[in-house]
């Protein structure tokens, strides 16, 4: 019995002539309906790995299978019906309305020579409701805040009606309120049966529920497993080169937190 998503010995580099791979010989599994956090310092290839999983980039070695089927053997539209990808925030060149952006998620369900029909517009409405952006549906996307835009992109991915959603640092450069809003949306989607794989810079987010975490460091996985075990003081030191204390908060929160220990030179 193959795992839901099986990643086996994958390696990737951007150009053939490059000596060193971005990452090499990485293997892991992702189970259905779990939230999988990918941690690691800047530039280790978290985004690159998500792009390989989504089919934007192609790995040179190894293979990625979805329910036993190699993702390279899917047609473009068929893969997009299974896997949706939420990019790191970028803006649209043209000031499309939010609803026009979200309905683009219906693209894999619409034939090349046709436009969105009533059913597609309804599906987009539903996605906007789920994510909570219906109230800005008629606003040009150039007039949305960072948090709203990230939610719009999640709604667009949801409109694809996928089984798996890949998110590339969805909470980076968002304020605290918007970070929590996004995390709530992600947890709700997972509760509905979606499999979530997300790259993040916030180890604390992985503690919110018992999630699976992998740390990517120097082309390899430093560790992989449940958040309580993987996000340890030793692993954080190895991954980010800073001393941290993992503390447990009581007072009705009942959750672990990852707190950096500041050296004297900084705190002084």
């Amino acid at each position, binding site marked *: 019995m193959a795992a839901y998503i099986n990643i086996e010995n994958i390696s990737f580099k951007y150009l053939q002539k490059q000596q060193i791979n971005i990452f090499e010989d990485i293997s892991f599994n992702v189970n259905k309906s779990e939230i999988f956090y990918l941690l690691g310092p800047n530039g280790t290839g978290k985004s690159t790995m998500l*792009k390989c999983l*989504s*089919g*934007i980039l192609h790995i040179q070695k190894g293979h990625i299978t979805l329910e036993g089927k190699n993702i390279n053997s899917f047609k*473009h*539209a*068929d*893969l*997009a*019906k299974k*896997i*949706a*990808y939420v*990019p790191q925030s*970028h803006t*649209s*060149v*043209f*000031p*499309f*309305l939010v609803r*026009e*952006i979200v309905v*683009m*998620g219906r*693209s*894999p369900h*619409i034939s*090349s*020579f*046709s*436009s*969105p029909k009533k059913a597609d517009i309804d599906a987009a409405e539903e996605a906007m409701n789920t994510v909570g952006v219906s109230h800005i549906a*008629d*606003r*040009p996307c*150039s007039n949305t805040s960072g948090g709203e835009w990230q939610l719009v992109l999640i709604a667009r991915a949801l409109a*694809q009606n996928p089984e798996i959603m890949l998110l590339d640092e969805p909470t980076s450069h968002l304020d605290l309120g918007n970070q929590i809003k996004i995390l709530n949306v992600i947890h709700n989607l997972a509760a509905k049966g979606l499999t979530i794989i997300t790259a993040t810079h916030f180890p604390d987010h992985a503690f919110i529920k018992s999630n699976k975490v992998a740390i990517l460091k120097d082309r390899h996985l430093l560790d992989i497993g449940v958040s309580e075990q993987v996000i340890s003081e030793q692993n954080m030191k190895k991954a980010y080169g800073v001393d941290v204390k993992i503390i447990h908060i009581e007072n009705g929160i009942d959750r672990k937190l990852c707190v950096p220990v500041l050296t004297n030179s900084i705190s002084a």
Partner: protein
Amino acid sequence: MIKALKSVSNILKNINTAAIKTHSIQIQIILFLLLISVVIISLMLGRMDIHPFTVIKILFSEILPIEKIWSSRIESVVIDVRFPRVMAALLIGAGLSVSGASFQGIFRNPLVSPDILGVASGAGFGAAIAILFFDNIVTIQIFSFAFGLLAVGLTYSISRVYSAVPVLMLVLSGIIVGALFSAMTSLTKYVADPMDKMPAIVFWLLGSLNNITNKNLLFVSPFFIVCMGTIYLIRWRINILSMGDEDAKTLGVNIERLKGIIIICATIITAASVSLSGIIGWVGLVIPHLGRLLVGSDNKILIPVTMLVGSSYLIIVDIIARTAIASEIPIGIITAIFGAPIFAYLLRKNQIGR
């Protein structure tokens, strides 16, 4: 013109965006009626003014049995002289505008025009050497069309790396190919007979709808109709391409194939336009922005609106070109004189470049 634009944009500011959606059908109907009236006005006006009812009767007499109470000379002016010219303006205006709108979408740049891949420079060079060596209208048109396609083919092959065609490479290759063909056109002008051939080349490049007959219109219009029809059918996908390659890929779009189809269609339209009329600039750049001002950015509505606005616009410009002064003004000059200030206005109003 500017005043009219200002009032239109003021009206639109007062309607909220949701209302624009429901109004988009009405806008299309209004633009369609505008197009029909512009066509009839254009058939009326000229060296000899003809009554509008006579124009309409003459048009219908081609397909219906109507008693001819007008002279055959008037009929000839309407059907043989003015009709092909108006139809050419309609097709070229719609074609250049729709090519511009789709190029702006796939190149993700609102400042792109249909000439970006060098098609106009190539077609211009083809026409110039045909004038130099053959000086026969059919040969000029065939050469112009062929060199337009050749130029874009060259651009495409220069920019192709590892079976992908990055947008930046495509645009830079377009500049290279455009510069090369412009230089060769200059060379052709330089060696041409300054009394006879050189002015012919210069006037041809400035653009005119004077040489169009029903016969060559019949030959060229299928190219326009098939290519515009194809872009019309895939118009919604241009939205997705305008979000960038990575997004489009994860949304299940075969980006290389889709871009290829759009580039081929837009190139054939532009090459066919240049081969009919010479180089008519600014239409493909400005009209899509006028369309966006009316109905927003969604290509599902923008593409048909752009076609309607573009065709009416070029017919109006052509009326001015042939009636403003005793002799005809090259149409490319007028589209530039109108286009530049309209574009400046739109830039400041909409902050397009933002």
